[in-house]
């Protein structure tokens, strides 16, 4: 137990490779200690595979995994000191709640006297607010309670890294939100390095210190959630996370402008890998504001669009406006109470919010 707690313990993954059929995973990833990180991606993108590789359930075909300076790559799962919370809980049906939590403690701290082991297990049951549930059989628990036990079980042996594999996806919406906050609280209390896999954007945005977007076996972008949301690094990132409007045209790198297919010149912020040629202009639905007829649509800090309202969608706190512009269809989001201007319908988007991406698919 001498190097059990390593305060320098971050996770570093270098050139980790895994292939199966025509699925190829190749990942570089660095997580700083004590942080809660989310891995977000569409189903089949390889996020669970990455988790299985880190936990050691699947051997990689290349690369290395370092945790707090220890090389995990060749270690079997039981020696990695990595905790896993599974989507389907994977509680041991033949053990009661207490013994599920004790399972890992007994193996990580075998020399600890039994009463101390039990006391430790109870501490973790307290942490997930299941005090006094020791003798309950796990079959009798609800989904949310099972996931709390699973969390306590994963935390109890004091792992250096906690992996959570879509832990809330089997639960219903309300429970998901409250348990999500619980997980954030517990992670903050234990300041344990955690990697949380999900396909739920809201979960990822609200939980993460850092958010990583994954697609087709690669991590495309990582950073603070606001950063990833405001400055998507690729067409995929822009369209996968949050709502997106795209206008097709040509990018001009020298002038920093965008010539729409309809022949208008718009201001644009460059994105990584931005080159002159066919491209797309991107902005979020909430970035546009309705306005009256602009004095000079070509100048200023905004791009202006003339639009015709096709239909509106009421979503409670806000409304989605489906619009048709010269440049194609656009969706804007505005507070539900906001009234549309009289006369000609125009909207403006700050040029800073318009990102240009090379390529059109």
């Amino acid at each position, binding site marked *: 137990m001498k190097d059990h707690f390593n305060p320098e313990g971050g996770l570093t993954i270098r050139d980790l490779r895994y292939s199966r059929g025509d699925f190829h995973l190749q990942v570089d990833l660095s997580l700083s200690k004590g942080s809660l990180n989310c891995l977000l991606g569409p189903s089949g993108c390889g996020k669970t595979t990455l988790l299985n590789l880190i936990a050691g359930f699947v051997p990689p075909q290349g690369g290395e995994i370092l945790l707090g300076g220890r090389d995990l790559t060749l270690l079997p*799962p*039981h020696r990695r000191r990595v905790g896993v919370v599974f989507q389907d809980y994977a509680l041991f049906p033949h053990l009661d709640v207490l013994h599920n939590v004790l399972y890992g403690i007994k193996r990580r701290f075998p020399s600890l006297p039994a009463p101390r082991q039990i006391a430790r297990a109870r501490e973790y049951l307290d942490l997930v607010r299941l005090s006094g549930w020791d003798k309950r059989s796990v079959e009798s628990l609800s989904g949310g309670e099972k996931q709390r036990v699973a969390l306590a079980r994963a935390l109890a042996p004091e792992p250096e890294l906690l992996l959570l594999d879509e832990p809330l996806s089997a639960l219903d919406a309300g429970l998901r939100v409250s348990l999500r906050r619980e997980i954030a609280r517990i992670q903050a209390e234990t300041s344990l390095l955690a990697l949380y896999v999900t396909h739920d954007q809201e979960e990822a945005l609200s939980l993460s210190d850092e958010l990583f977007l994954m697609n087709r076996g690669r991590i495309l972008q990582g950073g603070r959630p606001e950063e990833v949301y405001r400055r998507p690094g690729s067409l995929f990132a822009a369209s996968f996370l949050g709502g997106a409007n795209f206008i097709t045209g040509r990018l001009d790198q020298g002038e920093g402008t965008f010539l729409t297919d309809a022949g208008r010149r718009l201001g644009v912020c460059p994105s990584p890998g931005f080159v002159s040629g066919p491209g797309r202009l991107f902005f979020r639905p909430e970035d546009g504001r309705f306005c009256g007829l602009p004095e000079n649509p070509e100048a200023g800090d905004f791009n202006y669009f003339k639009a015709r309202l096709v239909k509106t969608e009421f979503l409670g706190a806000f409304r989605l406006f489906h619009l048709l512009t010269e440049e194609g269809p656009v969706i804007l989001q505005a507070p539900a109470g906001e009234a549309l201007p009289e006369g000609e319908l125009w909207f403006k988007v700050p040029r800073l919010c318009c990102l240009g991406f090379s390529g059109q698919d």
Partner: protein
Amino acid sequence: MIKKKESLLFLLPLLFLGVFFYLPLGFLFLFPGGTATLAGPRQIMEVLGDPYYRRVLGFTFAQAALSTGFAVLLGLPGGWFLGRFDFPGRRALLSLCSIPFVLPSLLVVLGFVLFFGNNGYLNRFLQSLTGLREPPLKILYSLRAVILAHGFYNFPVIIRCTAAACRNLSPSRRRAAASLGAGKPGVFWTVTLRELISPLLSGAMMVFLLCFMSFSVILVLGGGPRYSTLEVEIYRLARLSLDFPQAAALGFWGTACTLLMRGISLRLQKKAAVISEGGGSPPEALRPSGGILMGVYFFFCAVFVLGPLVSILVNSFQTLPSRGAGAAFTLRHYRELFGGGALGGLTINALGNSLFFGLATALLVMPAACLAAFGTAGEKNRLGRELLFMLPSGVSSVLLGLGYLRLRSLLSPGPALGRIFILAAHVILAFPFVLRHIAGGIRSLPPRLSEAASVLGASGTDLFFSVRLPLIKGTLFSALVFAFCLSLGEINTVLLLAPRNFNTLPLVMYRLIGAHNFYAACVPGVLLMALSGLAFWAMDKTAEGKIERSF
């Protein structure tokens, strides 16, 4: 590293199979003795050319098909009732339906004689009803008897399959069909029937196999060479004519047919399992009219299935003081358990042997099957190994016994050898079923649990004992009991291999039945019944006793 060691463990059971299964059978086919030196292709083909053996083969299939058809007819309504409706006693009835898997066939034979015989309870009841002098039903020693006995003791299998299939019917598929414009008959033809047919066929195939390989029912109730099946014919050739090459050649065809059918059966089971995925119809409440129909159905089932078994119990307390006189109550047969009379203490000795062989079989087959099951479970390319392990399920017990006989004739026959061979035969015969049962249990373990345990620090034997073993405890126990039952009721190899003065309960029964001493035969019958009942009860207790999946 651990993986490699684990996968080497399967070599041990393989070695055992090699010595006690592949070696004697190899010997039988390569050096069958007699004039031929090889029961090679020529002899094997010649056997088929003989019209007599062709007829035997044909009859084997015919009686199995007729028996299966009868069992399906009997079982379908029961399965429908138990699958569709909920009523008190439903669970008990369902679990009673797995009795055929543990009931020794010789008990069926004896009960059948006592109940359906010319002087049996059914005929006496009908005579007292009609006042006829002659018994109205002359069933025994005919094809009818064989089909009735097979049908009555296998239809519970059909009930279980049908009930499970009905329970798995998918209501949403039915509703989807209805919403797409199918009327009631349309829904039945296009959805319900498709969902029922595979599990039903799989159950029917199981029954067909049991009837195809059936031995004592044919031997006793068939009553003579007119109704001889492959199994019985092989036995006669080996035991009476001592024509080993011919017996081996016939055995070859029996094995080929059985293996083929087992293959079909496995495919059907897989298909049935796929179809039943995602289904699930909650049972409905039973209407009074349906309740009456069901009551009548199960009453007659009880009479015809339990009647023969109860007859054994009743007759064990009876004796015929003189020919023509009525039966009188007596405890004589039970007293003779301990010496004197027709039984002369045979039975208590046989009871000891049966218990010993049953327990020894169970205890020997478990480690072998466990090693084989765990050795193959994790492997991707396990087909070859599984085939090696499952081959004994295609070979009839009579043929296996024959192999041992042949081997014994080459060794110096000591009195112990026969017992060792009987034990080995029982272990080999139980092995594939126990293996399949355990392997099924292992496969049903969620792999996530092992992963969860491994990240919590468990590995190797710790992982095995802390997670996998506790989770398949029930399966292991029912496998153990199942092996005990298989050995308890087994008579084919005992008949072939028993040394002089060696008895088991079925063997004593068989001899007493052969001597038409039915009353005395009931005493070992009752003991056998009690043991099987106890085993059945224990298996039912563990809830995981879904033995039919292992067939």
